C-alpha cells in the first residue's frame, strides 16, 4: 500500500513536504505587515504579560533566581521556548487528519507526510523563536554559555514527546471527536504543571513530585539550565525521558499505521 506510513515512501514525496512547509511560512508572511514576526511576537508578548503580572504586580519572588530584574522574564522565556514547540506540535497534530480530510479522501500519498510537514514547520518556528530569545538575552546582558550545544538534543527530545502525544491524540480525534475538546484543557493544565512560570522550590515538597508526572518538566528544566543558568542539564533525568519519548513515539507510529486504513472511512 502506498498510503501506509513508511519513511521510504515519504522520501519520494519530499518535494511535497518541503513545499507544504514553505506554503505555511508564506501564508504567514503574505499580506500581513509584520508577517513572520508575529510568530515570535506572540510568545514574547505572553512572557511579558506573565512577567508583568506575576513579578511586578503580584510581587512574586522566585527563590533561586538572582535579583537581576530581568531574571524572571528570562526564566519564563526559557521554559516557554520548550513549551511552545510541544504545544504547537500537539495542537496541530490534534486536528491534522480532520483538517486534511478531503485531501486524504482524494489523493493517495504516504500519510506520514502530514505529520512530517507539521514537524518541519513547528521546528522552523521554534528555531526562529530561539534566535529571537537569544537576542533578548543578549540585550539584557546575558550571553549564552557553551552549554547551548545541548539545545539541538533538547529540541529533538521535545519533538519526540510532542509528536508522540500529538499523533496519539490526532488519531484518537478522528474517531472520537471529544478528544479535540479535551486536549486543549489538558494542555492548559500541563502548562501549569510544569515549572515554567514558577520555580519548583515554591511548590510544597509533597506536591513537587507531581510535577514530574509531566514529561515536559525535565525538558523545561533542561532548557532553563542551558539557557539561563549556564549549566549542563540533568543528563540522567533526560536519558530516562528519552526512553519514555521513544516508547511514546513508537506507540504513536504503530497506532497511526494501524489506523490509516480506516481513517478515511470515518472522515
Amino acid at each position, binding site marked *: *500500500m*502506498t*498510503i501506509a506510513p513508511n519513511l521510504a515512501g515519504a522520501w*519520494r*514525496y*519530499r*518535494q*511535497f*513536504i*518541503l*513545499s*507544504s512547509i514553505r*506554503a505555511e511560512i*508564506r*501564508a504567514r508572511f*503574505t499580506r500581513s505587515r509584520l508577517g513572520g514576526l508575529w510568530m515570535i511576537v506572540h510568545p514574547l508578548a505572553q512572557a511579558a504579560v506573565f512577567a508583568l503580572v506575576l513579578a511586578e504586580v503580584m510581587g512574586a519572588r522566585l527563590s533561586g533566581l538572582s535579583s537581576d530584574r530581568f531574571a524572571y522574564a528570562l526564566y519564563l522565556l526559557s521554559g516557554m521556548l520548550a513549551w511552545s514547540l510541544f504545544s504547537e506540535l500537539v495542537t496541530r497534530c490534534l486536528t491534522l487528519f480532520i483538517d486534511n480530510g*478531503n*485531501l*486524504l*479522501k*482524494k*489523493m*493517495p*500519498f504516504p500519510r506520514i507526510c502530514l505529520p512530517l510537514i507539521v514537524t518541519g514547520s513547528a521546528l522552523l518556528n521554534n528555531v526562529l523563536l530561539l534566535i529571537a530569545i537569544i537576542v533578548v538575552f543578549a540585550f539584557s546582558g546575558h550571553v549564552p554559555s557553551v552549554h547551548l550545544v545541548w539545545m539541538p538534543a533538547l529540541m529533538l527530545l521535545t519533538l519526540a514527546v510532542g509528536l508522540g502525544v500529538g499523533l496519539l491524540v490526532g488519531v*484518537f480525534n478522528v*474517531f*472520537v471527536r471529544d478528544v479535540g475538546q479535551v486536549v486543549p484543557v489538558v494542555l492548559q493544565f500541563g502548562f501549569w504543571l510544569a515549572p515554567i512560570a514558577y520555580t519548583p522550590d515554591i511548590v510544597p515538597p509533597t506536591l513537587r513530585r507531581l510535577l514530574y508526572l509531566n514529561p515536559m518538566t525535565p525538558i523545561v528544566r533542561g532548557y532553563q539550565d542551558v539557557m539561563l543558568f549556564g549549566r549542563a542539564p540533568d543528563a540522567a533525568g533526560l536519558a530516562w525521558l528519552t526512553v519514555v519519548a521513544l516508547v511514546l513515539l513508537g506507540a504513536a507510529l504503530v*497506532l497511526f499505521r*494501524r*489506523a*490509516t*486504513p*480506516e481513517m*478515511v*472511512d*470515518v472522515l
Partner: protein
Amino acid sequence: MNEPILSVARLGKAYRSYKSEWLRMLSWFGVSVGYSTEHWALRDVSLGVAAGEAVGIVGQNGAGKSTLLKLIAGTLSPSEGEVRARGRIAAILELGMGFNPEFSGRQNALHATGLMGIARDEVAHAMPEIESFAEIGEYFDQPLRTYSSGMQMRVAFAVATAFRPEVLIVDEALSVGDAYFQHKSFGRIRQFKEKGTALLFVTHGLADIRALCDRVVLLDRGRMVREGAPDEVVDYYNAMIAEREKTTVAVEQIRLGDGWLRTRSGTGEATLAELTLTDADSNQELKSVRVGERIVLTARIRVHDSIPRLVLGYMLRDRVGNLVWGTNTWHTGQVVENLHAGETVEYTLCFTCNLGPGSYSFSPALVSTDTHLERNYEWTDNALVFEVINTDKQYFVGTNWLDAGFQIRRDGSH
C-alpha cells in the same frame, strides 16, 4: 486479449460501526470485538482493464461508483479482494487537490506534482508543456487567488495530466472549463488512451460514455449488475432508472441481426403496435432512405388500460448512439387525454431526411409527461433502424446534409 493492466478481483468495501469507537481501535490490535452494524458499499466487483481500453462506470447515486474509484486509486482500503495494477495509477477524483491560493500557477504545479510523487527534475522537464496546455498566459506566474475558477481548472487539469499514467481514473472531472478547454481535455485523454493508458471513469454524461468508452459497467447498490458494450449498458441503465421511478413490468433486451440492440421497458398501459417508415410520395415502406427524401414515420399505439394522458416522444440516434434529434408531443403541445382501453392512436411524423449517410435508429417512448420518469408506459430503444444512402448528392461526410455550396473566386494575374 492482452494481459489486463489493471485487475480488480472480488473487491469489496464494508463500513462497520461499533458500539464505541474505542472498540474499533482495539480491533486493529487483534482484539476480536464484534461490530454492531456492517454496510457493504461495494461487494464482489471483478474487472480487468487492458492497456488502451476505456471503461465507463455508471450507476445512480450511492451505487458505489466513487467507492470503487477510491479503492482503485488507493485512498480507501478494501475490506476484501484486491486491486492489482502494472505501472502508475493516477486519479483525478477532484481537480486542484493540494493547490495553495498564495502560490502561483507554476509553484502550484510543482507542489501538486510533488503530491503525486513525481520527482522535481521530471516536473521541471514537463513545466513548459503544463504552461502551454493551461493557456493562461502571464497569469501562470501570478498567485492562484487572482485566477477565475475556469483558469484554476485549466491549471489543475494541465497538472493532473502532465504525466501519462498506466492507469487513469477520472471522476466527473472532464466537464471543466469552457467548451474549448473541454474539447482539449478530451483530446488529451484520448491521446493517453491511444498510447496505452487504461482509462476508468465515472460521469453522469451518458453521451461522454458513449463517445469515449469501449466498455461500460453498471453498478447498482454496490454490485456489478451489467457489463458490456456502451449502448447496451447505457440503454439498460436508462430503462432501470425508469423502472425505479415507477413500477415497470420488465426490462428486456434483444440484439437485432444487424448489431443494434433493442431495449424495451415500461408499465405497458400503452404499447407500440407498429412503427413504419414510408416514402411521402409513393407511400412505399422503406428500409433505406435517400439523402433529402421526404419521408413519413407512422406509429400505431394500442391502449390497454385507461390512462389520463399520452405523450409520444422520439429520439433519433446515429450508429454510435449520438443523439441526432429528439422531441415529444408534450413539447409540441399535442398531448392526447383521457384514453380508454382498446383504443388505438396513430401518430405520423413527416420530415425531410437531411441526414448524412449511415445507419440511424428511432427510439419511441410512450409516457405521461415530458420525461419518462413520471409514467413510462413503454420505451423502446432502437425500435426502428434504417439506412441513409447518398445517391444523388455530391460526396459528403457527417450526420447532416447541409445543402451547402462552395463559391470560389480567384484574384491576381500570376
